[in-house]
Structures are given as structure tokens and as C-alpha cells.
């Protein structure tokens, strides 16, 4: 009896999440084919810009790794986190009308968003890897699992931060003004285009408090077989991401019930 009940509930969630992903695919990428391309073009523009700057400075490698592959790894990882938080910040208000259908829950919306954003990043990551290989970049993938681990944490952290910001936004509009500069600061402090290994100790220790530094380094450890980083922690960013995610869920529950009451 309970088994059947759970089976049915699970199938309903699955059906709703699948329907949401298909629908969000439409709205996430817009109506034109350009929408899909933009998901690819945006990180590519960043990578090309950094590579160009490095070439002008006469450099071809970062921390002993091919510059374009180094940037690709960091920037795709960063965009996954950034897009995830940006989408979650507005996801519930943008989809409020969906809650009119009682079988759609905020949790379904959250899961659908996370699946869509991480799948998009994974596709972009694979395509850009093939482009790099075609350009004769030396890439020797070390540990595929580590890349997946890093991407999963970036998704989780992005979702958590987005939900927390969304909840704070409910109390004060200042979030929207502050979030953009703070996230820009975080971008530079996350090392998408440098490694903390080369930094002086005090600065490095400060930056290592930022979970995104660890997440991007873990992605690189997985992507480059030869790469070493003695300072990275495998557990710290996971704890941080899970904490942010749970806090975000709670904050969301709290504000949702306020709106409903």
C-alpha cells in the first residue's frame, strides 16, 4: 500500500520535473536557435579574451598548463555557479503561476532548474573540450569523477546562494543592488583564470575561504592529469555547498509560507 503510494508519488514528481525541464529549455534559450548558441558563445568570448591578453603578454601557459584549457575549465565552472544562482533568484517568482497546478511544487522547479543548468554546462564543457583538441591543445584528462564532483558542487552552491538571495530579497530590495558587485568580486576571488597555488601565503589563505576556489581547482585536478594543488580541500566546498543548499531550502520555506499566509 505505502509502496504503491510512494511509487505513484515518485512517478508524479518524475513526470512534473520532465515537463518542467522541457518547458524551461524553451524559455531558458529563447525562441531562436541563437539561444542555444549563446550558452556556448558567452563562455567562449571570456576564454578568447583571456587567451588574447596572455598571448599579448607573451605567455602560453598558466601554472604549467595550456592557457586556453585552463581558462575553459575555470570559466565553464564559474558560469555554472553564476547562472544557477541567477536563475534560482528569480525561479520561484517567475514560476509562481505554475504553483496553480497543485502537483507542481517549488522543489520540482528547483530540481528541474538544477538539471537543466548542469546539463547545459556539461554539454558546453564537452563541446569546448573537442574544440580544444581540434586546436591541438595538450589535454590529458586525469580523473573524470573529480570533474563531475566539482560541477555538482557548483550547481548545489549556486542553487543555495540563489535561494538565500531570493529569500533576503523578500525582506529588502537592497540585495539586487548589492548582489551584482559582490558576485563580480567573487568572480575575481574564485580564480577562474589563475591558480591560488602561485599566490603569496596571506592572500592565498584568504581566498581559500571561498568555496568556489576549491571547486574550480578540483575541476582542474580532474581535467589535467599532471596538475597538483597541495592546498585544495575535497570536503570543505562540499560542506559549504550542502550548508548553503539546506539554508536556502529553509529560507525558501520560510518566505513561501509568509507569502501564503
Amino acid at each position, binding site marked *: 500500500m505505502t509502496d504503491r503510494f510512494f511509487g505513484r508519488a515518485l512517478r508524479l514528481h518524475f*513526470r512534473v520535473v520532465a515537463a518542467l525541464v*522541457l518547458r524551461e529549455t*524553451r524559455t531558458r534559450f529563447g525562441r531562436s536557435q541563437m539561444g542555444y548558441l549563446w550558452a556556448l558563445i558567452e563562455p567562449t568570448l571570456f576564454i578568447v579574451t583571456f587567451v588574447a591578453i596572455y598571448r599579448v603578454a607573451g605567455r602560453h601557459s598558466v601554472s604549467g598548463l595550456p592557457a586556453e584549457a585552463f581558462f575553459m575549465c575555470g570559466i565553464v565552472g564559474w558560469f555554472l555557479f553564476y547562472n544557477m544562482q541567477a536563475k534560482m533568484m528569480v525561479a520561484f517568482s517567475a514560476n509562481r*503561476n505554475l504553483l496553480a*497546478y497543485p502537483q*507542481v511544487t517549488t522543489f520540482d522547479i528547483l530540481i528541474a532548474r538544477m538539471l537543466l543548468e548542469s546539463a547545459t554546462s556539461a554539454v558546453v564543457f564537452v563541446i569546448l573540450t573537442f574544440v580544444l583538441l581540434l586546436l591541438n591543445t595538450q589535454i590529458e584528462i586525469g580523473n573524470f569523477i573529480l570533474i563531475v564532483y566539482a560541477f555538482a558542487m557548483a550547481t548545489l552552491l549556486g542553487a543555495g546562494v540563489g535561494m538565500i538571495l531570493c529569500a533576503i530579497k523578500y525582506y529588502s530590495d537592497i540585495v539586487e543592488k548589492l548582489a551584482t558587485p559582490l558576485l563580480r568580486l567573487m568572480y575575481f576571488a574564485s580564480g577562474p583564470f589563475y591558480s591560488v597555488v602561485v599566490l603569496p601565503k596571506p592572500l592565498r589563505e584568504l581566498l581559500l575561504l571561498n568555496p568556489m576556489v576549491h571547486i574550480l581547482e578540483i575541476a582542474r585536478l580532474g581535467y589535467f592529469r599532471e596538475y597538483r594543488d597541495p592546498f585544495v580541500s575535497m570536503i570543505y566546498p562540499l560542506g559549504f555547498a550542502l550548508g548553503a543548499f539546506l539554508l536556502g531550502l529553509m529560507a525558501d520555506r520560510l518566505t513561501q509560507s509568509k507569502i501564503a499566509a
Partner: protein
Amino acid sequence: MIVFRDVSKAYRTNRGWRVILEPTTIELPRNRRIGILGRNGMGKSTLIRLIAGTESPSSGRIERQVSVSWPLGFSSGFHGELTGRENLRFISRIYGADIDYVTDYVEEFSELGDYFDMPVETYSSGMSARLAFGLSMAIRFECYLVDELTSVGDAWFRDKCEQAFAARRRDSGLIMVSHNAGTIRTYCDMGIVLRDGRMTAYDDLEMAIADYSEGLKL
């Protein structure tokens, strides 16, 4: 059957709490056509949204043993950037309905023509209402909810809606809220009066209407 178990609903307004429903336990029987009578401002629309599951009760719980529609003609569940067709596909998916059947039925019924493949945000309110009405008819529910019967489109289209809705009423239950006893008398065979946060059920519709009219005189 839909069962209210100690369900209450209150809103916080600028002037303090406003009670729509005191804790109520009531059974709404299956396959009856239930008319809920209430004056404006008594919370009829809130009540129908509670039954639909669009809103959660402040306390207690509502058990639905039948599939319940959204309030008929309800069109704010559409996504403006998606076309009529895409919206239908999405809603068919979450209800587990046959996508091809629903699409064909609504395309024919709503008479939107080329607009069927245009984003819903370009629709007039009449067009979205037609889409929503067609959708409510295409997906079979065991119980239909109606929040005041609002007329959609021209006389000819209203006729068509009336016919489709009459066919559905034959084998589904109906719960309708209205302030108009005449409307309730046309569609329903059982009555509930909603007054001051209390629901009083009458098996005999005329008794419900008598009680409601009594209340109007006071």
C-alpha cells in the same frame, strides 16, 4: 469525494487577520453538483482555490479522492513566452494526459487559428480564456470547479462552451461558487452557504437558497 478535515483559512491584511474559514470538517460528495453560495467578499474565490489545491489552508488538510480541475477558464497558469501549443503540451504532461488528443481537441475547440502557434503573451484576454476553457474540457476531470461562470467570446462560442460543459457535467462532479442563486439553481442539485467563515450544507438546494436569501435580507 473531497473531504475537509479541520480546515481553516485566514489572511493577514493591513488591518489584522481576516478569517475566510473557521475550522471546518465537511464532506463534499462525489458526483453531486454542488453550488456554494456566498456574498461578495465572503471568500468564495479563496474557497475554490483551496479545493483546487492552488492555495494551502492555514490549518487542517483537504483530501481529494477524485481528480479536481483548476477553476474553469483559469488562464493565469500559462507561460507568456510559450505558444498556446507548447503550454498545452506542458500541462498535458504534468496531468499525464494524452498530448496529441489534447492538442487536437483544443486546437479545434479554441478556434485560435495561427495564434495557436504564437506566444500566449500576444493573446487577447478572450483568446487566453478560450484556450484555457478548451484545455479544461480536453483533460477529463472527475470534478470540475467553476468560479462564477464567466462568459467567453461571442454568443456562438458561448453556446459551444455550454454544450461541451454540459457533456462533461453528465459524467463528472461539479463544484461552483456564485453570489447568484439563479446561476446555482441552473447548474446544481445541492447547496452550501458560505457565511462569516462557516459552511452550511443542505442536501436540498432550495433550502440552501432560502437560507442564503434570508441572509441577504438582514
